[in-house]
């Protein structure tokens, strides 16, 4: 049987699938840009190594019939881009990374 720790006491019990598969928390990394909504990468304006200014549009994520410009959150250099044009991306997936 599984064990569950509540307030430092170990209880013998069954764990549910939902509990076992719960999403582990990872602290947000400001250098990683992720999708906030699922959609399709419509156009990419930047390249790895390129310097961008805060507010500059880096790519278009088309979601729910809306073309969303993904703007640079700060001045910086693009380290890598993990998507290509026409890719369908789920919510919370990495789009690109800053140096």
């Amino acid at each position, binding site marked *: *049987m599984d064990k*569950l720790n*509540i*307030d*430092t*006491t*170990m*209880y*013998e*019990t*069954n*764990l*549910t699938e*939902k*509990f076992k598969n*719960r*999403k582990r*928390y990872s602290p947000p990394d400001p250098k990683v840009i992720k999708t906030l909504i*699922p*959609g399709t990468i419509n156009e990419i304006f930047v390249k790895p190594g390129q310097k961008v200014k805060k507010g500059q549009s880096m790519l278009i994520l088309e979601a*729910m019939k809306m073309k969303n410009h993904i703007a640079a959150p700060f001045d910086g250099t693009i380290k890598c881009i993990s998507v290509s044009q026409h890719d*369908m991306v*789920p919510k919370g997936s990495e789009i690109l990374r800053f140096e």
Partner: protein
Amino acid sequence: MSIFDKIKEFFTKKDKVNPPGGNKAIEKQKAMGKMYARDRIAYLLDEGSFQEVDLFVEHTTKDFGLDKKELPADGVITGTGTIGGHPVAIYAQDFTVAGGSLGLMHARKITKIMDLALKNGIPLIGINDSGGARIQEGVNALAGYGEIFYRNTMASGVIPQISVILGPCAGGAVYSPALTDYVFVVDKISKMFITGPEVIKTVLGEEISMEDLGGARVQTEVTGNAHFFAKSEYDCFDQIKELFTYIPWNNTKKAITISAKPPKYPFELDKIFSTDATKPYDIRNVIRSIVDDSQFFEIQEHWAANIVIGFARLNGNTIGIVGNQPLVLAGVLDVDSSDKAARFIRYCDSFNIPLVSFVDLPGYLPGIDQEHNGVIRHGAKLLYSYSEASVPKLTVILRKAYGGGYIAMCSRHLGADFVYAWPTAEIAVMGPEGAANIIFKTEITSSPDPNATRKEKVKEYTEKFANPYVAAKNGHIDAVINPDETRKYLIHSLHLLENKRDERPFKKHGIPPF
């Protein structure tokens, strides 16, 4: 025309919309392993009791060639009948007519029978088997859904509303079942979702089958949208008939009393229970050894199984049971189990069903996901619904009742009429180990042998506080009872509380933490 000709004409017309020999579409429905709408009604209701209304209703749409199409009964069969001799209103969508699609007249047939049910205080049963809105009818189909949702809401807590999903139920259509009291699903037949696999694939590129997206198992195990899972349609209808034996016909009545029966299972605590608070046992065995005939009708058995809810009887009278389940997640309260219990408590309160709570929990489930999923808001629902409920409220603390969990599980502080505790109860601010670690932190850390000191302090705390007597001393519980006497105590208390009056301040409605 003679009377005989008139009657013959009537039968000809009737047979046209309800062909006695069936038709190809009906054969197809049966070939899919599904029952025909009329057979469903016939099986669920008392034999021969169904009286149909609105058989001759026709749609009025002229667009997209619909004016040339005849849709018998507009794709939904409505009427009244009896279950166990008591009247009910019922509708069943007919998938063999335009895929059971909902147009304005189809919806108006449903709302007519809903109005009848509400006005006469009888239960409403809706059998859903529909491809969704009849697109050709445009906004009129949407209007139809809206008029149903409005009535579902008006009837909520006044008459029992049962939804049976026996086919697809997609898009806006899912919100009628979602607004009703209980949703019944059948393996491999029921499918519920807001957006189907096609749309998900187009928009997101994610592929999933209808079954994995919103099949019966998903709705009863993952989402909690459905309350009862059945292997076949017949099993499903039998479940509904059983449910109806426990609930009253409307909110002004009490559930029927049947002759009292002693529990079938003997009360063998040494076999079904453990005094060690860290060891699991199945709370349902304890429930069964206390209630009439050991019959416990469980609701949402497969979802949030760390709390158990359902109906049983004591001395022939229906009670609603809420019990922590030490067998699953040590019986903790979390987002889902709080939702599950809170809604059931409100159901029982609406329909005059006394509540009996069996308490054995270490508290709320710790975790980042729980906090980020709003366990504060969801957990508050339980406090709200227990406090709000004015039906008789009885609580039995079997073992652990720690911290916030103790308060939430119908403590006297939330208005329980009687709180009983077994001698094995541990009513404390937290488990002995956690408490000792905090209270005796300095002693433990400064000790030459911290582990030995910790053990000693845990023992000290356990002896002093892990019992029911501190709470009893302060009047927070009413009696420490011999477990053997639980049934006796509960039956006497319910008898005493039969005419309980608990007046509340006037309000339009409260603002529960939805």
